[in-house]
């Protein structure tokens, strides 16, 4: 029995167009399914490095009131912070005279810790107001 190849391919689910050998037909097909220029999806890498994990610290318990307490007024060394903290001392003396204020200049650069001063405040004070950034 003579089988028509075109018919056979159709029965197998293959497009008979492939027999045509016509590049025009194949190109038309491509054009129908091609992604427009510039619309191809690309995968790229995240350029970020690794920031360190952050340890959360609970904040220190608060005071029930500032009345009768000793508050350290600490300058971080920026120009004028000493004068501004002095005005806070003036404000407390006028508005909450039971508050005792103590002025201190923190040692080191603005971002350095001053363990000695922190120990002093913990031993002889109740709270700290620190000023300021510029």
């Amino acid at each position, binding site marked *: 029995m003579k089988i028509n190849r075109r018919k056979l391919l159709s029965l197998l689910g293959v497009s008979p167009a492939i027999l045509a050998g016509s590049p025009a037909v194949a190109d038309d097909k491509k054009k129908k399914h091609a992604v427009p220029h*510039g*619309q*191809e*999806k*690309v*995968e*790229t*890498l*995240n*350029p*970020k*490095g*690794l*920031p*360190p*994990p*952050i*340890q*959360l*610290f*609970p*904040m*220190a*318990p*608060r*005071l*029930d*009131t*500032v009345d009768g307490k000793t*508050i350290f007024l600490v300058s971080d060394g*920026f*120009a*004028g*912070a000493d*004068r*501004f903290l*002095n*005005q*806070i001392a*003036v*404000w407390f003396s006028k*508005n909450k005279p039971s508050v005792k204020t103590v002025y201190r200049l923190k040692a080191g*650069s*603005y*971002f*350095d810790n001053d363990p000695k001063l*922190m120990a002093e*405040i*913990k031993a002889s*004070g*109740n*709270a*700290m*107001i*620190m*000023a*300021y*950034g*510029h």
Partner: protein
Amino acid sequence: MGFPTAPLVTIAFKDLAKSNAANRGMPGERICFLPHPMTNKSDEQMYAVLEGNDPVTNKPLMAEIIDALTKPLTADEKKTGMVNPDIGPATYVGTQDELQRLYCDNNMTDFMPIILPTAEKVEAMLKGTSHSPDEVVGKLSAAQGAQPSWSFTVKHVAINAVMAGASPEYLPVILAISATGQPALFSSTSSFSRMVLLNGPISDQIKMNYGIGAMGPFAEPNAVIGRAWTILSKNLGGCGRPGETYMGSLGSNFNYNNLCIAETENKLPDGWKPFHVQKGFKPDESVVSIFSGWSLNNVAWFPNMPYHELIKNWLTHFFSFGTAAATLLLDPTVARDAKDHGYNSKEALSDYWSKNSKTPAWLYWDTHRNELKQAQAGVEPYASYLKMGDGEIPFQRFYRRGRPGAPPDPNPKSSIEVVVLGGETNTYWAGGDFSYVTSASVDKWR
């Protein structure tokens, strides 16, 4: 610390203060804000600030300060444990335009188009080094001690190098720069600039331009390596987020390229050492050297005096943020002029300048407040300085000095660095307040 605290910060630093508190483990820190700036306010004006409102919450400031110290803690404020900052997904998918926009909008670029870092391009970049992609290169921070230090690997650097448009043969240079731990973008309000100098065989191997237009946009490696430093500083150190990790008020155009230059070693006068050799490396080693500063003067002036005398006078009067260090970038013609006048080494020239330059009176008194008080009390030599009026004070400011309070060095070293570069088209030079920071081997990263 164990006791309640109310930190006060001016409003210009709101984002910085909040992110800093979060980075240090207290995202809910009760920061109270003041108007900005406070520095030049009178006592009366400062008191008025206390009687006014916090500019962020619009609540009375002193009531807020007292609340910060007394209001009971919330559950969030008592939290403990570890948190990993979110840096986004490992990969992004989109069209070229979408991805260009994504990298730009997320401040991962210098806001100029980038080469998109696909896995294939990064793999090709990694062929520029023998080091493993997973090897940790170092750490970067927008301000060491004040901002968190991020760590990064060879692969991270390669991704950023691709984005900047680098070729694989530039990768060892970019790795060496990043390994110094020096960010191109520093958080200071003063708008720091950085400079990177290449010395040794690497300059010719990658075709750095150190001839005509050595500091201009005339060669790919000069352009791309400097650019890569800025991009990687943003992505590998969290630097360059305005208001948070970058506070430079005016900013600096130098940050686009970070003055990426190479020394014209083949035109150095006889006896003058290349910069890396001055710093202890061998002539055949390839090295990057990092400088930090703010500004440059590009001087085109034909003096009726030798160039080294002109530069000495310029040093006396030069003033910017930095007043105690300088770097001179000399065209080879100017370097030869100095050599012809008897300066047989860069060091001899630097020493001459340090010893013989002076300081304008106004600048001296502005930076020596204690000495001014002594001068007014008749203490010598300050009293004599004060009698000089607006003239030049015989104070040599270009020496490396210890930290304030340190004992004086009997033999202080000059803080003036000399680099020779340029195309000899004229007897020009540039000088600025850049100081030398460090050098690193490029060969280590090949």
